[in-house]
């Protein structure tokens, strides 16, 4: 059942205060109520505590009036005249003086609703006992509340269909159960823009269908399962797995991207059975991506590490007790600290609390600023950009007093006149942003401008204006956009811009010169929190610059230590280089996949070369296999934590499952620190939260303008005569990411990996191309992208082999494209 609060329910911080002049007075079941103009009667009735039964109605979909379940009697439409027939309250806006009698007070309305309910049930199968929806079914519930107890249909023939058909690899349709309310088709059309499901046939044979050659492939397809008011739509992964009344539901925050989408985790006896979108009007509304919904099996696989391991004298990893593992890790790290120092790589998946623990351990225990969360291509320019423009812009903090930029929110995207996307493909990389942009574009409010190599499917659905850009040319292109932008516009800069020298500086300059608001959109859930926690070589927690003595004193005082390391540390690439060169003695690493890093081979070599490696991870990886101490950490279901999303919105969550042997990183790091003799002063999530709150954001000056270093001048031109095409790439929403392991149905919905080429390249190379870069070559089917900018080839970053970085080349570098097999 979807019962909405009025449209202003998203909070006064965004909705604003309703003006009294916009209110309309209506009488519902004898109770007078004032509701905003244009409110539908069905929602006005909710204000007086009356729930009118409904199926097709959904507050986030356009009214359709198809199911007729919400009929009410309207004796006065506000003009003194009544409607002769019952009216569908889901399509009827209120009018001043309107009188509405619902099923509560009107016999006519009650009978009309009972009549419609009876019709709905005649062709509906009585398989509730085996139906996934049974127990949480709006049809079941409302048949009880607004239907008759017995059937008058006895002796007649029900319409039947063969049982479920696949709409896609992951969404199944049981046509017998369907009441053709059209919620799913309307969602696919209005919200996701993937209208691959539609009504076919007519009358009682009317059904949802797909074209033979076009399954319902959408990154958002799971939402139709959730909004289906009957059990007609089910998922391959959850179908027949559980009953709703056996499940325990815990609120959570999606860990697959930086959107901070609210989810509901449904679990039974310590195992997650399914995940649903939770209702958060300020963030993801009621929608999540299929990745957020279905990709959770990774934490329940056979390769989950369940006990600590240390490398024994024989050179093999052996099980160890927690105290032993702490002691061995502490001893090794202490030794490595003196043998050149320890680098800390934390990955982008940590909760803010865990990131804070790494940040503090690095400074207090290991005495270093050699810490970086960026397990991906990065630049020093980016670190400076993050320090100057991102750190400290947290929703809820007063930007006027902190001197930071005001954070950009989802609501700001909706009210912006223009949104510039650069280095960001939101449909793939930030689904909730994409949905919000599409909503705003469809409402006619926002124009999307994309600085990108071609108009992707996601951009096409946003009616985006493409500014065709060869990767590397972004700085020049951005400079040219200044005239288009003003204070009503927003620039969203993706993390991929780090690979383009000068691009992030150009973004900051563009925002400064045009007045446009700026937000940085990373890919991973923990990235933004790690910036706030100080998991960067140039930043301490709360956006405090390492280079600022006052900031260091601030943190040192709070932490009760004499001093903090003064020099800015090494970034991830430099840590890798230092390990390979033997300059660093050890490595503390958590949740880093070498294949994601800017130079996978170098990262692997660094782990190999490191004198001592402590790895914290959820599952066995090539890093844990090479580590000297392996410490299993809790997945997000097993611990409380906080993700800070791209907006800078703090998204705390509590543990869904109770698993005493599953420890959060911060508890493990605290144990190691205690063994090292430099205790962190906390052992639990609440203690970290209290300490972080106490420390608060930095209220001193940000990094000075002069300290903004630009690493390397922008490439002058990409058509510089050198051989080959420029490689454009990003990760698709569904790909070979390790957190999508364990759900073959989800993976089957991934887009087929292809190389996108221009017509000219296709003409000379044909339908299969072999692309060769400095790290290897790959053969893919070629597809012409109509407006792909000349001189560029696009491939998905992690949809084949070990990914582009391991198997092909760096993004933005030159590759050779040839026809046929290599």
């Amino acid at each position: 059942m979807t019962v909405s609060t009025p449209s202003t329910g998203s909070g006064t911080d965004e909705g604003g205060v309703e003006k009294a002049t916009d209110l309309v007075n209506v009488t519902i079941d004898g109770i007078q109520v004032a509701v905003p103009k244009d409110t539908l009667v069905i929602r006005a009735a909710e204000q007086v505590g009356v729930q009118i039964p409904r199926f097709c109605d959904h507050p986030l979909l356009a009214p359709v009036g198809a199911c007729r379940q919400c009929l009410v009697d309207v004796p006065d439409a506000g003009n003194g005249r009544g409607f002769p027939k019952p009216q569908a309250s889901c399509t009827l806006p209120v009018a001043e003086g309107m009188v509405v009698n619902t099923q509560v007070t009107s016999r006519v309305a009650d009978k009309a609703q009972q009549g419609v309910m009876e019709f709905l049930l005649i062709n509906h199968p009585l398989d509730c006992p085996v139906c996934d929806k049974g127990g949480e079914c709006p049809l079941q519930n409302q048949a009880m509340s607004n239907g008759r107890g017995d059937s008058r249909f006895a002796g007649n023939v029900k319409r039947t269909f063969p049982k479920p058909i696949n709409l896609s690899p992951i969404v199944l349709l049981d046509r017998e159960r369907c009441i053709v309310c059209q919620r799913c088709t309307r969602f696919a059309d209005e919200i996701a823009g993937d209208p691959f499901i539609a009504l076919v046939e007519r009358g009682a044979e009317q059904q949802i269908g797909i074209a033979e050659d076009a399954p319902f492939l959408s990154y958002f397809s799971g939402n139709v399962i959730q909004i289906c008011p009957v059990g007609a739509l089910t998922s391959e992964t959850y179908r027949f797995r559980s009953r709703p009344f056996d499940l325990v539901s815990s609120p959570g925050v999606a860990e697959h991207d930086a959107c901070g989408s609210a989810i509901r985790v449904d679990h039974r006896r310590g195992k997650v059975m399914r995940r649903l979108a939770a209702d958060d009007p300020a963030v993801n509304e009621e929608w999540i991506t299929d990745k957020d919904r279905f990709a959770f099996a990774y934490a329940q696989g056979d390769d989950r590490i369940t006990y600590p391991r240390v490398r024994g004298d024989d050179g093999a990893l052996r099980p160890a007790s927690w105290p032993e593992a702490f002691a061995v890790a502490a001893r090794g790290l202490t030794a490595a600290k003196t043998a050149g120092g320890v680098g800390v790589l934390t990955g982008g998946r940590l909760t803010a609390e865990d990131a804070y623990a790494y940040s503090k351990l690095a400074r207090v225990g290991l005495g270093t600023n050699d810490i970086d969360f960026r397990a991906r291509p990065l630049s020093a320019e980016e670190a400076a950009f993050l320090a100057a423009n991102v750190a400290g812009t947290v929703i809820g903090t007063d930007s006027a007093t902190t001197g930071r930029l005001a954070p950009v929110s989802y609501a700001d995207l909706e009210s912006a006149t223009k949104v510039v996307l650069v280095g960001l493909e939101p449909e793939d990389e930030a689904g909730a942003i994409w949905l919000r942009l599409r909503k705003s574009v469809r409402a006619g409010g926002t124009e999307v401008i994309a600085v990108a190599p071609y108009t992707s499917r996601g951009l096409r659905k946003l009616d985006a204006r493409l500014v065709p850009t060869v990767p590397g040319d972004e700085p020049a292109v951005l400079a040219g956009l200044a005239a288009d932008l003003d204070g009503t516009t927003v620039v969203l800069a993706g993390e991929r811009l780090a690979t383009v020298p000068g691009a992030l500086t150009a973004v900051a300059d563009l925002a400064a010169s045009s007045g446009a608001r700026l937000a940085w959109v990373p890919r991973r859930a923990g990235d933004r929190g790690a910036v706030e926690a100080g998991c960067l070589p140039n930043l301490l927690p709360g956006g405090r610059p390492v280079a600022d003595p006052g900031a260091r004193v601030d943190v040192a005082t709070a932490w009760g230590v004499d001093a903090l390391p003064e020099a800015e540390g090494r970034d991830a690439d430099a840590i890798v280089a230092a390990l390979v060169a033997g300059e660093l003695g050890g490595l503390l690493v958590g949740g880093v996949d070498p294949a994601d890093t800017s130079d996978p081979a170098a990262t692997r070599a660094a782990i190999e070369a490191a004198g001592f490696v402590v790895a914290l991870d959820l599952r066995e990886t090539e890093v844990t296999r090479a580590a000297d101490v392996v410490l299993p950490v809790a997945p997000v279901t097993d611990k409380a934590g906080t993700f800070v999303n791209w907006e800078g919105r703090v998204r705390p969550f509590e543990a869904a499952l109770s698993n005493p042997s599953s420890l959060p990183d911060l508890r493990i790091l605290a144990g190691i620190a205690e063994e090292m003799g430099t205790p962190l002063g906390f052992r639990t999530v609440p203690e970290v939260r209290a300490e972080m709150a106490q420390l608060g954001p930095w209220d001193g000056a940000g990094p000075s303008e002069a300290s903004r270093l630009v690493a390397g001048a922008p490439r002058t031109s990409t058509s510089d005569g050198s051989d080959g095409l420029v490689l454009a790439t990003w990760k698709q929403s569904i790909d070979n990411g390790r957190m999508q392991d364990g759900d073959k149905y989800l993976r089957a919905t991934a887009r087929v990996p292809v190389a996108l080429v221009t017509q000219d390249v296709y003409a000379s190379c044909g339908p299969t191309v072999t692309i060769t870069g400095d790290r290897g070559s790959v053969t893919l089917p070629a597809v012409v992208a109509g407006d792909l900018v000349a001189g560029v080839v696009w491939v998905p970053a992690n949809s084949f082999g070990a990914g582009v970085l391991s198997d092909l080349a760096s993004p933005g570098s030159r590759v050779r494209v040839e026809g046929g097999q290599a």
Partner: protein
Amino acid sequence: MTTQDSVLTPVLTDMWDVERSWTLPAYEAKGGYQALDKAFAMSQDEVINAVKDSGLRGRGGAGFPTGMKWSFIPQDNPKPKYLVVNADESEPGTCKDIPLMMANPHVLVEGVIISSYAIRANKAFIYIRGEVLHVIRRVQAAVAEAYAAGHLGKDIHGSGFDLDVVVHAGAGAYICGEETALLEGLEGRRGQPRLRPPFPAVAGLYASPTVINNVESIASVPSIVANGAKWFASMGTEKSKGYGIFSLSGHVQKPGQYEAPLGITLRELLDLAGGIREGHDLKFWTPGGSSTPLLTAEHLDVPLDFEAVGAAGSMLGTRALQIFDDTVCVVRAVLRWTEFYKHESCGKCTPCREGTWWLVQTLARLEKGHGSEADLDLLLDQCDNILGRSFCALGDGATSPISSSIKFFRDEYLAHLTQGGCPFDPARSTAWAGQEVPA
């Protein structure tokens, strides 16, 4: 074909007996396309006022005043205006637009031009039921002839008015006679009715102001312009002005189209049609197709205009008079109609989609003599749950034959139950009754 009897007022049907009446020369010989020049000499608003003053009401069944519909078009709307002619004639028993378009397509084309001129539309669509390919071809040919003769296209008759006409073939759905479903179909979408408001006059075809009129309404416009509103209003009754085509079918001696002033009675029409089939009496009839509640012999003298038929408990509808004599089982006839509605329900809303499915089964049982008297109350209750609860009028129409037949022929329903089956011999109601060859 009409006769010269004084009761009749042949206007649209006047030239149906002319040799090759559907051709442009035949139409022009009868004064065709002269009303056009008269219209161009008037301002657009004068044309609208003439149609308003004539009292012409929509001939598609609902009887909405045509001139008023035209005046609803917001002329300050910058979007293009469209005229759409509803030629999706599908109502069981209704057979007026199809013969009109076959015999005299040019009067429709001329009406389209004048009407488009009045509402300032430069593009008009004629949406013809897809099953009647011969009609589509004939109208297409007429439109081509009109283009060639300069009646369509740029600067028509030197007036400066441009008009293009598209003849569109429907894809075979009764629901597309409903004007918003027709618009959906015309736009290339699934034919299902749209939510109103917005009404087509504000946001119709391609979300632009659109007038949708029945073939007969539009075809009546040239005569109103040519002869004046007063001439038109002199025919018919006080609130139902003018003439209309009455289609008589079923058990009458001379079935066909009879064009007469509104307000004529079935008794008069039957006289013209030579009466009921020899040796039989009138049992029941529909005044305006199967969606209008049926009437009986006691209603022979009801004036066939919007008001009087409404007062008699039915609707004038499309003046499709289906005549059934005493050999017909009313239960059987109603079952056939209900099967039609079940087949044609578009599926959008629950009452019509599920209700017609159930009604057919209940009726079929009754016809076989199964069930009980309580099933009649069940039927009426099902109808009550459909009528006024469905999304569009198709659902309402599906209940009309059932509730009206139970009202007038309850005993006949019960006779099926007491006799354990239908008391009628269906062969006796056929056209070949009495001529059967024994096996």
